[in-house]
């Protein structure tokens, strides 16, 4: 008895998973160094940070959790590096409970690398519950909203915080977010209300929602997913995890495009064969 003829429409999905896995592993083991072009939203973000006078205080809003680290941690790393290179002082404020330790893993080693001192050059205020209520509270008084830092030290005892009362003292806010509360709330409650210069880095899946804010000027720039992070790393001149991952990203995208084309060709051919069927009968 003849076996059932092979039909690509019934292909085992595990074959597709395997191909995707190979497409990810291969470029990670054998980097191809594909070129990374910088897109305008990333360039404008970089230019906005470059335009901040040295010694200014910038805020890093870190609102993400470990599940989105592959996309967002490179943005946080690169922003901190960029700020330290430009002698900007950083205040970290989080609206997500899982964020403060993730920022700590980045800011500690970088501070050591650049010779920065906690409490003078940077401070991690940790997490505060409340979402938009916290943002509005920061508009009135940041020390009252975050009475102590991540380690429990009262902000009154932190030298850097003596210069910070509210958003008037913040030259630029970089918001790295994976969802809500995040970039949208910062745009609505802080940029719109207090006219603070605001840049953002988001997961790729959220990025299309925020590009209109770049076009309208509400955001100074936007890092969209791993590609945005890789572009930012390129501009800052320190290729990191995002740049490493872009080869794999490109190969998988090519594979997905091939799958889509194949699927459409098979679909069109199946329509054609169905059209013939009655005539042949």
């Amino acid at each position: 008895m003849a076996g059932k003829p092979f039909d690509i429409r019934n292909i085992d999905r595990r074959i597709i998973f395997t191909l995707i896995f190979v497409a990810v592993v291969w470029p990670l083991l054998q980097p191809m160094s594909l070129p990374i072009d910088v897109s305008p939203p990333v360039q404008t973000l970089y230019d906005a940070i470059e335009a901040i006078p040295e010694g200014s205080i910038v805020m890093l809003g870190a609102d993400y959790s470990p599940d989105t680290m592959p996309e967002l941690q490179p943005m946080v790393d690169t922003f901190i590096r960029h700020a330290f290179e430009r002698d900007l002082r950083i205040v970290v404020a989080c609206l997500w409970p899982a964020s403060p330790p993730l920022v700590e893993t980045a800011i500690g080693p970088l501070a050591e690398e650049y010779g920065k001192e906690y409490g003078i050059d940077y401070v991690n205020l940790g997490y505060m519950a409340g979402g938009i209520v916290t943002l509005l509270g920061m508009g009135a008084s940041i020390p009252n909203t975050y009475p102590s830092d991540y380690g429990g030290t009262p902000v009154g005892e932190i030298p850097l915080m003596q210069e910070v009362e509210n958003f008037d003292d913040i030259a630029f806010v970089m918001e790295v977010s994976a969802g809500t509360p995040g970039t949208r709330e910062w745009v609505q409650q802080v940029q719109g209300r207090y006219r603070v210069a605001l840049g953002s880095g988001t997961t790729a899946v959220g990025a299309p929602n925020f590009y209109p804010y770049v076009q309208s000027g509400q955001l100074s720039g936007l890092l969209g997913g791993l590609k945005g992070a890789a572009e930012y790393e390129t501009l800052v001149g320190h290729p990191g995890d995002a740049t490493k991952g872009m080869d794999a990203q490109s190969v998988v995208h090519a594979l997905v495009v091939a799958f889509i084309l194949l699927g459409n060709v098979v679909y069109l051919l199946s329509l054609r064969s169905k059209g013939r069927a009655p005539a042949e009968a």
Partner: protein
Amino acid sequence: MTFIWTTIGAILTLSIYSFLYKDNPFYKFAEHLVVGVSAGYYLVIYYFNYIHPNVFSPVFLLEIGGEPIGFGSFLWWMALIPGLLGVLLYARFFPKIAWVGRWALGIYVGGYAGLGLSPVMQARVIEQLRANALSVAGVEDPFAAMTNLALAVGIFAAMIYLLVVKRNLGAKNPLAKVGVLVVSAVIAYGGWLVLSLISSAGVVSLTNILLVIGLLGTLSYFFFSMKHKGILGGLARVGIVFLMVGFGASFGYTVMSRISLLIGRVGFLIDWVGQIRGIFGA
């Protein structure tokens, strides 16, 4: 010690991905572990960040942020009342008194609506409208921006004419004649637009025009008070094209996002294998 934790992480990662082959006990174990650990972690975080400082500490320990407060003082009541409202939310588990939960929900929804309404209008409507008053000349030309604004006003006037005047007041009404004039003005403006395109259009101006057309087309698609026929039908079809392009871009970004997570995990596994090789000197 780090290696042990990395190994546990790697085993759990492989357990989760094993679901791609088929459901199995390793996947189930890892899944339940994630749910349990997450629930425990967030319970503690939320208790010590919400309930303890905002309710338990002021109401029972009589202090806020380390500062003492008086029993029955204004601040004490301001901690107690929201705390009680929070407790009322759980009334939904008792059908006979479930309705009292609506009080707390009403205050919660009302408060957030009040806080959000004005900023949302400003950030998502007014600023976006302003951003779409674009120059067609490709330069920051106030005259061109004004003509764009005139186009927007004209189109809105035409829609009002089609929707209200023609339907409800009849074509002989003087208002209808004004509407006809507005429509004529829009057509005239369209003619001018085409001429300016032919004569001096640059890339920027073409982008701006596309953006405005896309916006009007998309809005038309979601305009359900009239049948999608004639001009409105045409605009709605244009809107569908722009929507499809938007969905395609979103799909691409979603693929990128998901693959980024896979890249992160695979990178972690490669590092882990590297550590093993380092330990065993392979």
